């Protein structure tokens, strides 16, 4: 059996199904009966004229008259009758004609439908009226409908269907938002930061799908309460458990199994949500082809949330999140200086969030949050003929306390004040040889830092047409000892050879401070009831960043706090947009433009090595980045077919020029495209749900290939050719495109049991596009060959089952 056969089978199956659907009635009896009916608006009861009535999907239908009635003579048989009218949800019925039949049909006006948030570039409750720009909400229902790779519902992959959100390709460890690097996104799960957002090196995102209630993506105006990252905020919230009713939901897919329970512990007072997901099916690889034998991949995540409604004025919640990953493949590079049989990655996240909400009055409330977050990646190197593994690990510990006051004195003002303190502790690297006698234990000194922030924001309604959100944040960062700060000869590169002195700082001593104001401004002007224009300005500072010399940061990439040599990244974003709702809010149209500059972006010196490096400033260079783009989006929010189409034009260019010498510049100090600079992007998502039992989704994505560096020549040493690279990122890999399909069958037995199940059939990369992940070169002797690395290059078919027990 080959894949072609399988596809053929699917094709034949779908064709025969559609032929079956169009089967003509057989002439069994001569005497026709009359089918008649009246079509009315479900809400007003008004008759609907000019509605199209079709029998058995015939191309030609008949129209209802001004009184909304129709009639047709049909011979005895089974028929499918559809009634449709623009602006109304179509009506379908199966009738058996053996007598005269009269139908009373009520069509539902789409414009009057309660809209379900599919996706919205504006907050739905306030429609065009909110002053924030570039805010996208995505409902977990929408996310669950999108075709998911191997049936695993995925927040990050869904995000990439939005304008302005891209990635470097398959298996990228995070997303790039409006020209920002992966580590410039603040990703929060119930207020706790997620340092590594993906499982298995970018295959799946880490958010437990059944426990997520929704997410907000701030890629334009960021509220002043958020800080610490330069580009965007992805705020994912976990559902509060039901306080009334026990429920259970879960699922099984080829990859992972999951289970979520909501348990009211004290009815009406205390509830608990527990969720867990695990993927431990990698044992199957050992039966696979030789190439797959060395692959091991497993992951798990678990979350719990306790919600306590103390009284009408106080609530308390405690949430916890845990995630673990284990990954081994020959695609991971090894560590040159340690002998090992393979390379394994193992990384873990452990987060806690405690939140106390207290309503002082109707107009004033206070929210206090404490966060504990720990991320611990490890590289494991198993030894030959031994159970021992040499491990190289790092750790980030972030503890945070914040209080927010929300005050709404009248309908015209919504004021927020807050204070925030964050302590970072970073263990950049330890090497533990275990029982290996040939390797020395190593440790890089721990980094400590404190970030303090104050913020104030007021959302003001100036008049009926104008709303302004004005916020100001002040952040202050202190890099703390114990540490040794080197001094390098000024005006030259920072290397081992240019050290002129070094200063030792004791525990808690401040070695360097940074800080400044971060204004946030959003402005909305309503042109009319259906359209508005918006402007935004943002400044954000980032004191903690990833140091990575690979195309996408690895889960094991090292994080680095700002210090005496590494300056914080400062990003400014200007944006403007036009928004319009069309046809009674069925359609939403938006166009947004932005320009962003970032100071002190980090890039690496040629040949840089960060592993267990005590003085990272000798390996990196800092420069600037500029990004600009335009995003167009049309969304259809209601009806049988919903979805969106968007196009984005965007550029990201970097410049690194610290000095005159070759080692202090990248690309001779000239501007060059960033690794994730992909100018043209098109995303389309269509969702067809005829009724609540079937749901069919198609998504298509296209993007310009990402840049890579192609050689300007070859040099031969010792009879072997080596590529010579003079310019950075001047070539591009092939354009990326992909079509995904999913078919969701909900509650197939159509009964209203407490137990409802649904099947999800997914095909990822439906037409098997062989997308390039990387292009690289190997030389043999004086000859060279160029190769391409493709991952997910054939359709990936999967079937998953989900259930709910209420």
């Amino acid at each position, binding site marked *: 059996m080959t894949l072609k056969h399988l596809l053929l089978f699917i094709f034949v199956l779908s064709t025969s199904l559609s032929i079956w659907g169009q089967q003509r009635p057989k002439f069994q009896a001569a005497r026709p009966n009359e089918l008649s009916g009246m079509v009315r608006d479900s809400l007003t009861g008004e008759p609907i004229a000019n509605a199209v009535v079709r029998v058995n999907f015939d191309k030609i239908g008949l129209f209802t008259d001004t009184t909304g009635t129709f009639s047709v003579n049909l011979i005895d048989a089974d028929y499918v009758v559809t009634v449709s009218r623009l602006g109304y949800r179509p009506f379908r019925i199966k009738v058996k004609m053996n007598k005269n039949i009269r139908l009373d049909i009520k069509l539902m006006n789409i414009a009057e439908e309660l809209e379900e948030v599919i996706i919205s570039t504006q907050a739905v409750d306030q429609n065009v009226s909110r002053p924030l720009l570039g805010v996208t909400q995505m409902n977990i229902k929408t996310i669950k409908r999108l075709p998911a790779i191997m049936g695993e519902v995925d927040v990050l992959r869904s995000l990439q269907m939005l304008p302005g959100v891209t990635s470097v390709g398959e298996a990228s460890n995070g997303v790039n938002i409006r020209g920002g690097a992966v580590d410039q996104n603040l990703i929060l799960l119930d207020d706790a930061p997620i340092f590594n957002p993906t499982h298995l090196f970018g295959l799946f995102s880490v958010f437990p799908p059944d426990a997520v209630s929704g997410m907000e993506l701030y890629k334009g105006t960021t509220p002043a309460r958020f800080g610490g990252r330069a580009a965007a905020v992805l705020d994912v919230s976990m559902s509060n458990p039901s306080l009334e009713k026990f429920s259970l939901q879960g699922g099984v897919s080829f990859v992972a199994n999951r289970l979520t329970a909501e348990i009211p512990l004290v009815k009406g007072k205390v509830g608990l949500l527990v969720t867990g997901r695990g993927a431990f099916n990698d044992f199957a690889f050992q039966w696979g082809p030789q190439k797959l034998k060395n692959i091991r991949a497993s992951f798990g995540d678990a979350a719990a949330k306790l919600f306590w409604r103390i009284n009408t004025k106080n609530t308390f919640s405690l949430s916890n999140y845990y995630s673990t990953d284990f990954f081994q493949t020959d695609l991971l590079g090894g560590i040159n200086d340690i002998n090992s049989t393979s390379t394994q990655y193992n990384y873990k996240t452990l987060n806690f969030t405690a939140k106390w909400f207290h309503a002082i009055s109707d107009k004033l409330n206070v929210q206090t949050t404490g966060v504990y977050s720990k991320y611990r990646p490890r590289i494991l190197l198993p030894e030959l003929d031994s159970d021992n593994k040499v491990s190289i690990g790092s750790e980030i510990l972030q503890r945070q306390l914040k209080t927010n006051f929300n005050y709404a004195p009248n309908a015209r003002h919504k004021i927020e004040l807050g204070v925030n303190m964050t302590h970072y502790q970073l263990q950049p690297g330890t090497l533990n040889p275990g029982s290996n006698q040939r390797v020395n234990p190593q440790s890089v000194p721990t980094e400590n830092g404190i970030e303090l922030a104050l913020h104030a924001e007021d959302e003001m309604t100036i008049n009926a047409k104008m709303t302004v959100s004005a916020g100001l944040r002040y952040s202050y960062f202190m890099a703390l000892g114990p540490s040794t700060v080197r001094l390098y000869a000024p005006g030259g590169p920072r290397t081992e050879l240019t050290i002129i002195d070094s200063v030792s700082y004791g525990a808690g001593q401040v070695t360097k401070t940074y800080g400044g104001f971060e204004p946030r401004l959003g402005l909305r002007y309503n042109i009319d009831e259906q359209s508005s224009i918006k402007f935004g300005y943002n400044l954000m500072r980032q004191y903690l960043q990833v140091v990575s010399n690979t195309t996408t940061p690895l889960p094991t990439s090292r994080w680095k706090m700002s210090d005496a040599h590494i300056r914080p990244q400062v990003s400014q974003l200007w944006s403007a947009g036009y928004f319009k709702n069309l046809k009674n809010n069925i359609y939403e149209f938006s166009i947004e433009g932005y320009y962003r500059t970032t100071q002190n972006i980090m890039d690496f010196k040629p040949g840089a090595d960060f592993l267990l490096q005590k003085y990272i400033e000798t390996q990196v260079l800092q420069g600037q980045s500029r990004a600009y783009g335009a995003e167009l989006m049309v969304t259809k929010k209601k009806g049988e077919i919903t979805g969106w189409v968007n196009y984005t034009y965007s550029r990201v260019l970097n410049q690194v020029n610290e000095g005159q010498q070759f080692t202090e510049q990248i690309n*001779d100090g000239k501007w060059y495209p960033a690794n994730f600079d992909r100018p043209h992007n098109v995303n389309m998502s269509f969702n067809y749900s005829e009724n609540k039992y079937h749901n069919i989704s198609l998504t298509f994505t296209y993007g310009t290939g990402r840049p890579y560096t192609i050689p300007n020549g070859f040099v031969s040493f010792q009879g072997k*050719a080596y590529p010579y690279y*003079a310019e950075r990122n001047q070539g591009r890999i092939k354009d990326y495109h992909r079509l995904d399909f999913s078919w969701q069958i909900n509650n197939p037995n159509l009964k209203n049991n407490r137990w409802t199940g649904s099947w999800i059939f997914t095909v990822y990369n439906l037409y098997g596009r062989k997308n390039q992940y*990387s292009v690289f070169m*190997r030389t*043999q002797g004086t000859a060279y060959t*160029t190769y391409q690395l493709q*991952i997910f290059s054939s359709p*990936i078919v999967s079937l998953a089952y989900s259930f709910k027990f209420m």
Partner: protein
Amino acid sequence: MNIRPKTTLFICLLLTMSAFYGCVEPYDITYSLNANVLSVEGFVSDQAGTTVSINIARNSNNSYYSEPLKKCVAEIRANDGSTIQLQEVADGIYAAPANFKGKIGQTYQLTFKTPDGKTYESSKELLSTSPEIKKIYQQFDPNGLLDNLGKNVVSSTVDVYLDVDDPKETQNYYLWRWKLYEEQSICITCTGGRLVNGQCVKINSRNPPDYDYQCDKQCWELIYNSTINILDDKFVNGRSITGRLIGKIPFYSPSQGCLLEIEQLALSPQAYQYFQLLSSQAQNTGTLTDTPPAAIIGNIRNVADSQDKVVGFFGAAGTRKVQYWINRALYPNPLVKTLLGRAPNYEITSFPPSAYPCVLSRTRTPIRPEGWQ
């Protein structure tokens, strides 16, 4: 069409698994190469035979070649004030006097002036001692050599390992390289022709044969390591480095032994960094954790123009040299890949069969190597 559910499930499972596996294929792309860069390489060591080669790598469209840079004036300066003049012994190859050996603890700097008047210099490199090689040993790997895509076995190999004790007091950076002497019986192949009076002459035929001719006397093929083998002792400082793989030597013959000359160089940190960069550009590619490409600029610079880029490195390295005889007869039934890559096709029409001289070059020698058994 009939399809059993079990088969479908199995296919789906396979597809799911294959997702984790990347697929590497050749990619047809035409480059427009345009770089013309000066490339320099050489080492001063505590052994005789210091040479420096100076070339210009010329690149145009899809091809490149190395053009020796002749008539340079080159010298090596030591920090004790002495200078060693280099003589051009072959095109673009500049050698120190035969009796010159570097001294441990000295720094050395290469300077040279090109015929068009540009002056270049290297950084000063410290010559440090290389620890003694403790032990060399071998292991048989029946499936040692795979083809370019890593799919099929091309040849069995003898894998050569070494042990060395790393000194505790110093930071050490190692480079290992080797030269392999293989007995060569065929000294020329006339592609589509035959040998007439020491010259290959084309045969007028639709499918002319390729004839091989034996050497006129005993001849050795010289094969060099093709990968860069370096080690930083940061993880192993002061400990014994055991089982370091030096080379996988293919079975060019089923039982005839061969001589391996192993060199261990003590690099400076800068030299190590350069060779690491060089190796990452050519070796560690195709993985998800690849290091993006960077210019292979070493420690040579144009004195007057900082924008003039020179690739390569001039280093100083204490060197240990060991001859190691590989006995292939120990291993039964190896998979053999001959030096020719196919069975020889001798021309039998002429008698006695013509022979071709064994010409001394970088890859061939008629001089019996020391230690040949």
